[in-house]
């Protein structure tokens, strides 16, 4: 199960909405081994694409150095799908390299109508996808 604060949830959705129709991506870092998302880090989608995202290579290095220095890990890796449902694509599964992370998918497919955003979370381990419950709390 992913437990996340309302504030972080809102930040992820806002970022997805802002970058629509391109995919938005980022990380919520948390203390190593605890899986608790704490620090919101929106990333630039170097691909600037409605169907693909990739962290810029220099940004990626900076991000991991910084997390390392702070004893953090990526508790959440998030990105948006802008025309399809919030379910991991084959590409998402192939490049999922953080078995300890919650992979959050936000769909902005209905962003024009500003309807309900899909916000779903998964574990992706060795090509296997498991959806998990998302529990939104006021504070940890």
């Amino acid at each position, binding site marked *: 199960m992913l437990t996340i604060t309302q504030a972080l949830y809102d930040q992820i959705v806002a970022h997805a909405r802002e970058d629509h129709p391109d*995919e938005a991506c980022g990380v919520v870092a948390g203390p190593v081994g605890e899986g608790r998302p704490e620090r919101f880090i929106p990333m630039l989608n170097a*691909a600037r694409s409605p169907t*693909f995202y990739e*962290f810029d290579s220099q940004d990626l290095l900076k991000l991991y150095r910084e997390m390392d220095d702070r004893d953090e890990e990526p508790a959440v890796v998030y990105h948006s799908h802008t025309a399809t449902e919030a379910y991991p694509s084959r590409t998402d599964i192939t490049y999922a390299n953080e078995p300890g992370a919650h992979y959050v998918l936000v769909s902005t497919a209905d962003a024009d109508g500003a309807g309900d955003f899909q916000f779903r979370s998964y574990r992706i381990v060795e090509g296997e996808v498991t959806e998990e419950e998302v529990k939104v709390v006021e504070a940890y």
Partner: protein
Amino acid sequence: MAIEVRIPTILRQYTDGQKAVEGSGDTLANLFADLETRHTGIRARLVDADNGDQLRRFVNVYLNDEDVRFLDGVETKLSDGDSITILPAVAGGAA
């Protein structure tokens, strides 16, 4: 020639969980070959045998702070005391 190599979580299965290992080699390709002698299986995760042993598309390797794709890829020259960081790309998307 000692070169520090920082290993990402996903590849620590090859290094007994160690976050950093030492290796040697005058080029990145030779360093990977050296790592393979002690960490069997790691090389195939870094280079693509079907593509002339070039770096895999979604593996980033940095010499000190520089992405080796902007240097000479696997032919990048290394010196004693260099630091190599390996990071899988964070990528995906609906496509």
